[in-house]
C-alpha cells in the first residue's frame, strides 16, 4: 500500500515520538492557553506527530490518486471550519461548540482529519485566543485524532452490521464528538489530579462539566453530518464511489 520512503518517514516519526516521549519526564473542549504544564504540552505534541505524518501522506495520496475527490476533501475541511466556529447554547446554561470532524473521518479516514483539524485549531489559537498554542498538541490529539478515529471505527463497524447508512453516519459523528470531550476531560484530569481522589475523581469532575453541555451538541453534529452526506450522495456520486464511500452497485 505505502511506498517505501513513506514507510520510512512514518517509522522515523514513531521513533522520534517514542524517544522524545520517554525523554520528557513528566512532572477543553479546547484546553486553554497556558493551562497545561509544559511537560504535558510537549508530550501531547509529540504523540500527535506520527498521526500528522500519516495525515500528510493520506492527503497526498488523495491528491495524487483521487484528484476528483479533492473538492470533497476541501468541503469536509470547510465543514470543520464552520461547525467549530458555531457556539451553541446548551441545556446547562453554557455554550459550547462542536468539532465537525466526523464527516472527514468517515469519508477520508481518520488520519486526513489530523491535518484539517490542526489548521482550524491553529486559526483559533492564534487569532481567537481560543484553545492555545501551548495546548495545541493536546487539543489536536483530542479533536483531530482521537475523536475522528472513534468516528471512523464506529462507521466501519456499522457498515459491517449493515446499519442504515444515515443512522450509521449519525452515530459515528455524534459519538466521535462526545469522545473528543471525554479525551479533553482526561487530559485535564491528568494535569490536575484531585487531591482526594486522584486522576479518576478529577476526570469525573471535568466530564461533569463538559458532558451535559456537549450531549445535545453531539446530536446536532450528528444530524448536520447526515445532511451533508445526503447532499453529497445526491450530487457527488462519482466522487463518493472513487473514494469507496459507496459501492459501485449503487
Amino acid at each position: 500500500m505505502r511506498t517505501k520512503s513513506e514507510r520510512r518517514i512514518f517509522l522515523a516519526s514513531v521513533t522520534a515520538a517514542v524517544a522524545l516521549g520517554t525523554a520528557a519526564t513528566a512532572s477543553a473542549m479546547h484546553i486553554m492557553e497556558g493551562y497545561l504544564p509544559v511537560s504535558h504540552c510537549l508530550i501531547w505534541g509529540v504523540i500527535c506527530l506520527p498521526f500528522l505524518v500519516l495525515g500528510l501522506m493520506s492527503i497526498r495520496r488523495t491528491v495524487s490518486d483521487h484528484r476528483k475527490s479533492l473538492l470533497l476533501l476541501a468541503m469536509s475541511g470547510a465543514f470543520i471550519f464552520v461547525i467549530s466556529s458555531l457556539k451553541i447554547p446548551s441545556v446547562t446554561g453554557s455554550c459550547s461548540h462542536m468539532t465537525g470532524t466526523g464527516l472527514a473521518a468517515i469519508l477520508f479516514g481518520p488520519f486526513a482529519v489530523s491535518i484539517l483539524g490542526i489548521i482550524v485549531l491553529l486559526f483559533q489559537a492564534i487569532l481567537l485566543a481560543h484553545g492555545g498554542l501551548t495546548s495545541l498538541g493536546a487539543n489536536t490529539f483530542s479533536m483531530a485524532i482521537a475523536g475522528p478515529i472513534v468516528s471512523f471505527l464506529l462507521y466501519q463497524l456499522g457498515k459491517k452490521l449493515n446499519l442504515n447508512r444515515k443512522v450509521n453516519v449519525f452515530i459515528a459523528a455524534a459519538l466521535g464528538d462526545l469522545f473528543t470531550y471525554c479525551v479533553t476531560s482526561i487530559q485535564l484530569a491528568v494535569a490536575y489530579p484531585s487531591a482526594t481522589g486522584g486522576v479518576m475523581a478529577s476526570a469525573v469532575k471535568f466530564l461533569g462539566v463538559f458532558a451535559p453541555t456537549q450531549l445535545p451538541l453531539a446530536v446536532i453534529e450528528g444530524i448536520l453530518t447526515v445532511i451533508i452526506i445526503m447532499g453529497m450522495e445526491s450530487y457527488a456520486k462519482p466522487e463518493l464511489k472513487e473514494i469507496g464511500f459507496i459501492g459501485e452497485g449503487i
Partner: protein
Amino acid sequence: MKSNKTTVIVLLIIVLLIAIVPLFALKGAEFGGSDDAGSQMVAEITGTEYEPWFTPVLETMIGGELPGEVESLLFCLQTGIGVGIIAYGFGYLVARKKYKTTKA
C-alpha cells in the same frame, strides 16, 4: 428525491430546536463558554485561582484581551470561509448534475 427533501427539513428543524430551546428555557443563564467552566473547575480542584503561565500570542501583542466585537468578527470570518467553500462545492456539484442529464 421528494422524501429526501422532507427528511432534510425535519432534521434541520430538530437542529434549530435543540439549539434555540435552551435559550428560552433557561432565562437569565449566562451562556458562558464551557471552556471557561473548565477553568473554574481547575480552580476548584487545585483550590487556588490558576494563573496561566502563557498568555495567547495575540493578547500579548495588543496588550490586553481581544475586544468582544473583534472576536465575533474573527469567528464570523472563520464561518464565512467555511460556508464559502461548502457552498462553492455544492454549487459546482448541483450544476454538474443538472447539465449532465441530457448526455446520460
